[in-house]
């Protein structure tokens, strides 16, 4: 599943870089064709420029990218936080990228890149697949007057990190492209420090020499934010993967920023805890990257945002100075809470080098229920039932509710067709996956069974199934987690992560279906419902 915060709707200006345009769509093709549809009043030739404010009408929903222009401070706009994430994906038949109204003439061949990307975690490029064009060539971005890397710089880096200064074009080719293969930079240097001290030395040197730097973690982001725009030096946290300490009473984990999330998960699970966040990309993403992007994920509903669970950070600023805030205190009101600035700053204010995070006790009992909902009557057929089920869940399951995901019938068809995953329940317009996690098997099963019995008898559900065994639980989650994969096998995908008020959440999908007509093969909506942490 993709990143889940509204920040993913934009790419803010990075450390020492100019503003970057993006509508946060992934893949990053500026939807020139889509724009005329979405913005009927703007001139068709105008490419989306920084500061564009995209309006979707006639629904009363606004997709807002943060307005910023060179020199402006970022104004992150968030639509009502207490809402849900709707992932809207539009799959077009390959090659059917719509042209601007001005005519197809200006269309560059690089925009017709068809793909499915390979399975998450692996980054092998299918042989013969056309490469995405360089960001510098594809978008009207300007390289600000930073220095260029010279032999002296390389020698200096080699002195600081012997053997870990990489200029091999093959290795660089991989780190210059994001996971979705939607944007490509042209960096020529990759640095792999092992310690905070090394990061500090690197940044001090770059600051003195006016060299641009692009920090990179697992490179699993879906908004093109993890790779350079031009030839910035890539600073990778790949070798900063030591776990520094774990306190097994408080559950406080202190580790370097390059630790892979799954690895951390396993480490704390052996000690009876779990990480407070979980993403589809856990096999590859780094905790430093999660913090820098304020990642949400599957456990967001239950454990809340990283803003609540991160206890302290160690950050190296652009001039090389180290801000050491690795407190492990659960409550610390001394001074300003500077770590909140860095969480979600996406590498623009400093490089996160170590994280102190509060882990939570591992739930003894995890149950997953997969439900098919009754078709509704008015408005969006069936979606009201999703909201009703959600309200019902919250009321009945209360504190043991740990995830609530929904997907529409088209999603189910697609995972069935492309991935061979069979639907465990009778066909319905909407499906809901409910997960409970608690400390008592008996208590949770009782609550869940009571909830299901009531939901069934009140006519909310057409069908449902429950799973407690790992294998079944994983199989049910796969139906939800692999939707992106299925879509990418269907055609070229435009993916939008949107936070919207509950009531308007799904209106977008039928509206877009109507607007796009046969140009879009499928328009699907899926996502999570929930309130911001308690």
């Amino acid at each position, binding site marked *: 599943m993709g990143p889940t915060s509204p920040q993913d709707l934009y790419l803010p200006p990075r450390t020492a870089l100019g503003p970057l345009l993006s509508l946060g769509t992934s893949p990053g093709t500026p939807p020139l064709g889509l724009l005329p549809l979405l913005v009927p009043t703007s001139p068709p030739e105008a490419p989306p420029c920084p500061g564009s404010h995209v309006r979707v009408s006639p629904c009363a929903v606004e997709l807002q990218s943060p307005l910023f222009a060179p020199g402006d401070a970022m104004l992150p706009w968030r639509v009502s936080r207490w809402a849900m994430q709707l992932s809207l994906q539009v799959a077009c038949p390959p090659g059917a990228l719509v042209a601007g109204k001005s005519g197809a003439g200006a269309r560059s061949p690089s925009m017709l890149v068809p793909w499915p990307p390979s399975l998450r975690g692996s980054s092998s490029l299918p042989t013969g697949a056309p490469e995405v064009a360089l960001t510098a060539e594809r978008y009207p971005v300007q390289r600000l007057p930073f220095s260029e890397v010279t032999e002296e710089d390389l020698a200096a880096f080699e002195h600081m990190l012997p053997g870990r200064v990489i200029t091999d074009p093959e290795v660089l080719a991989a780190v210059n492209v994001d996971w979705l293969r939607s944007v490509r930079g042209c960096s020529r240097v990759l640095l792999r420090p092992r310690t905070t001290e090394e990061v500090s030395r690197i940044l001090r040197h770059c600051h003195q020499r006016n060299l641009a730097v692009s920090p990179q973690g697992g490179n699993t982001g879906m908004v093109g934010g993890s790779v350079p725009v031009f030839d910035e030096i890539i600073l990778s946290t790949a070798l900063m993967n030591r776990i520094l300490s774990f306190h097994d009473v408080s559950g406080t984990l202190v580790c370097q920023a390059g630790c892979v999330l799954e690895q951390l998960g396993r480490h704390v699970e052996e000690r009876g805890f779990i990480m407070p966040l979980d993403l589809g990309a856990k096999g590859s993403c780094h905790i430093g990257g999660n913090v820098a992007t304020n990642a949400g994920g599957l456990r967001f509903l239950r454990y809340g945002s990283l803003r609540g669970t991160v206890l302290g950070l160690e950050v190296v600023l652009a001039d090389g100075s180290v801000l050491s805030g690795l407190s492990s205190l659960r409550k610390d009101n001394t001074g300003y809470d500077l770590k909140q600035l860095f969480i979600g700053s996406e590498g623009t204010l400093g490089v996160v080098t170590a994280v102190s995070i509060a882990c939570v006790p591992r739930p*003894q009992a995890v149950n997953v229920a*997969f*439900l098919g909902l009754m078709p509704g009557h008015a408005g969006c057929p069936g979606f009201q039932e999703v909201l009703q089920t959600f309200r019902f869940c919250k009321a009945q399951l209360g504190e043991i509710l740990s995830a609530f995901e929904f997907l529409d019938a088209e999603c189910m068809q697609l995972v069935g067709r492309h991935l061979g995953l*069979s639907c*465990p*329940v*009778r066909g319905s317009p909407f499906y809901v996956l409910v997960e409970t996690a608690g400390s008592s098997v008996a208590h949770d099963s009782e609550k869940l069974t009571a909830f*299901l*019995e009531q939901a*069934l008898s009140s006519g909310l*559900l057409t*069908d*449902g*199934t*429950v*799973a*407690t*065994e*790992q*294998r*079944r639980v*994983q199989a049910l989650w796969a139906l939800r987690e692999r939707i992106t994969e299925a879509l990418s096998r269907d055609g070229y995908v435009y993916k939008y992560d949107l936070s919207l008020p509950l009531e308007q959440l799904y209106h977008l999908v039928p509206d877009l279906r109507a607007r796009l007509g046969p140009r879009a093969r499928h328009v699907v909506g899926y996502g999570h419902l929930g309130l911001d942490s308690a």
Partner: protein
Amino acid sequence: MAELRALVAVKRVIDFAVKIRVKPDKTGVVTDGVKHSMNPFCEIAVEEAVRLKEKKLVKEVVAVSCGPTQCQETIRTALAMGADRGIHVEVPAAEADRLGPLQVARVLAKLAEKEKVDLVLLGKQAIDDDCNQTGQMTAGLLDWPQGTFASQLTVEGDKLKVEREIDGGLETLRLKLPAVVTTDLRLNEPRYATLPNIMKAKKKKIEVIKAGDLGVDLTSKISVVSVEDPPQRTAGVKVETTEDLVAKLKEIGRI
């Protein structure tokens, strides 16, 4: 003809996704607080039985399990998948550890006769002990024909056509009923138990009996001496040239 009755044996095992830990005293593996579920091959057996019932070839499906009280959960799962009723052969936890294929086979043989079933379905093996003996022993004790590693099952009147997966490919047998069949992976894909069935399963009957009631002696002539972790894999050694390789192999006495 829907006169056939089927007995399906299911085993409660440690969930296959769980990391197994050996007890420090080496008498077995840790089972306390560990997630258990129905043996995957047993699920396939239940699914097959239920499908036969849906095709109206079998009239009644009885699910049976031997072990401590928690086995009833496993039987309930079978009932939720479509079995009609369950039999729990209660064996206290301490003794249950020593239950082997022969003991279970004796129980199943007695039950098959008592319940007058025509077909006994089991998974080919359990994922905890990998014995792959219970089905065969049951058939032996009953003196019934057996079709093991079944990947396809067809009822033809009073005979059973069983396609078996063997090393060389597929072998097709025709067995006269009553018979014993053990299921292999490719026989079917077990269904998810849906809510209405889970609710119905709560009302289905599970009879609790003891091995003694069947006149079966559960003593085993086998005792477990020790259970140990497999040896840790040691790191390999890299060599630069073929000469080095030969020298190294000679050094460790392999050539």
